[in-house]
């Protein structure tokens, strides 16, 4: 059974695109056929995070307008043959696509892939409405900050209003040292405030910046965030994986090897 998952947040810059890239790669590592769809028309970014920016010929709007066949616009990943990217258009705007067209596109993609991952734009306007139209599951990304949590709450309300009730939460950029000091809301605090199920937490990790610089998602590698993303992928598949202890980040070995 094929699933369409939208990665959304409301607020910009909380890590939707990075999360989408890593979840897409992670699911491909676990043997699933995955397509990553960048729905941010006019501000595409998933292509650079995936390191596929030089291979774009056609895009999402081209498929919808009938300028090309679906297969022509799909870009195969460098490492995983079962992972594809459908880039968005850079020179168009959100009104080029309607929610009905997106729903139809998602249905077509579902025939070819086990997972359709939609990277949603920030905001609650047309772009958001398009992205959620075809989805049957939502992952809401937030950070432990008041602004991001407030927007996440609003997004959860809008998702529910759209009859999308399969919603899970990803708490991104958590800093356990600050939580311990009492200067950052804990994962439990965020879950308590938003009252949705947690599917995983990602620490604030410089390895993510390094991996994005190179256009290589880090899911599955031994870094703490690589493991955290892999665990989220397993949970998406329905496996019971205990929440990773993020405190191990500044372990003795890490400090020595990284010279911190």
């Amino acid at each position: 059974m094929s699933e369409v998952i939208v990665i959304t947040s409301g607020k910009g810059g909380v890590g939707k695109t990075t999360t989408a890239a890593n979840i897409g790669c992670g699911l491909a590592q676990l043997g699933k056929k995955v397509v990553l769809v960048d729905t941010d028309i006019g501000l595409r970014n998933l292509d650079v995070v995936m390191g596929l920016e030089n291979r774009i010929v056609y895009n999402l709007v081209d498929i919808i307008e009938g300028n090309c066949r679906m297969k022509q616009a799909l870009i195969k990943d460098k490492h995983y043959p079962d992972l594809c990217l459908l880039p968005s258009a850079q020179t168009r705007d959100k009104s080029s696509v309607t929610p009905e067209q997106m729903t139809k596109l998602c249905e077509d993609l579902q025939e070819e892939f086990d997972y359709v991952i939609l990277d949603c734009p920030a905001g609650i306007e047309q772009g958001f409405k398009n992205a959620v139209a075809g989805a049957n599951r939502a992952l809401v990304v937030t950070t432990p900050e008041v602004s991001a949590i407030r927007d996440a709450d609003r997004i959860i309300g809008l998702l529910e209003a759209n009859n999308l009730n399969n919603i899970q939460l990803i708490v991104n950029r958590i800093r356990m040292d600050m939580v311990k000091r009492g200067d950052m809301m804990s994962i439990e605090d965020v879950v308590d405030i938003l009252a949705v199920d947690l599917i995983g937490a990602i620490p604030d990790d410089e390895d993510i910046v390094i991996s994005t610089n190179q256009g290589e998602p880090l899911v599955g590698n031994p870094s703490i965030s690589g493991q955290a993303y892999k665990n989220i992928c397993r949970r998406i598949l329905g496996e019971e994986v205990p929440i990773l202890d993020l405190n191990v980040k500044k372990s003795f070995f890490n400090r020595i090897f990284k010279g911190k």
Partner: protein
Amino acid sequence: MGLFSYRHKNTGTIAKDRLKLLLNAERINCSPSILIMLKNDLVKSVSKYIVVDENNVSVKYTAIPPTLTAHIPIQETNLINTKNRNNRKNR
């Protein structure tokens, strides 16, 4: 000022409390100050009849189904009275 006096409360807790109040208010489309006024009014009205534990009163909103829930703990002394009354009835 030294190590101990520099902060009264952890900023994480401040953030959590602010958010809780704000989101509760936004979910029912009214401002946090109105929610505080509602809470104070509730305490005032209920206090006419029962002694309530004012510091632990909370007003919460949940979305499905849309419900406003007031949690109003009653002072221990009142509870003992009720117990005695029940005991007397049983006898």
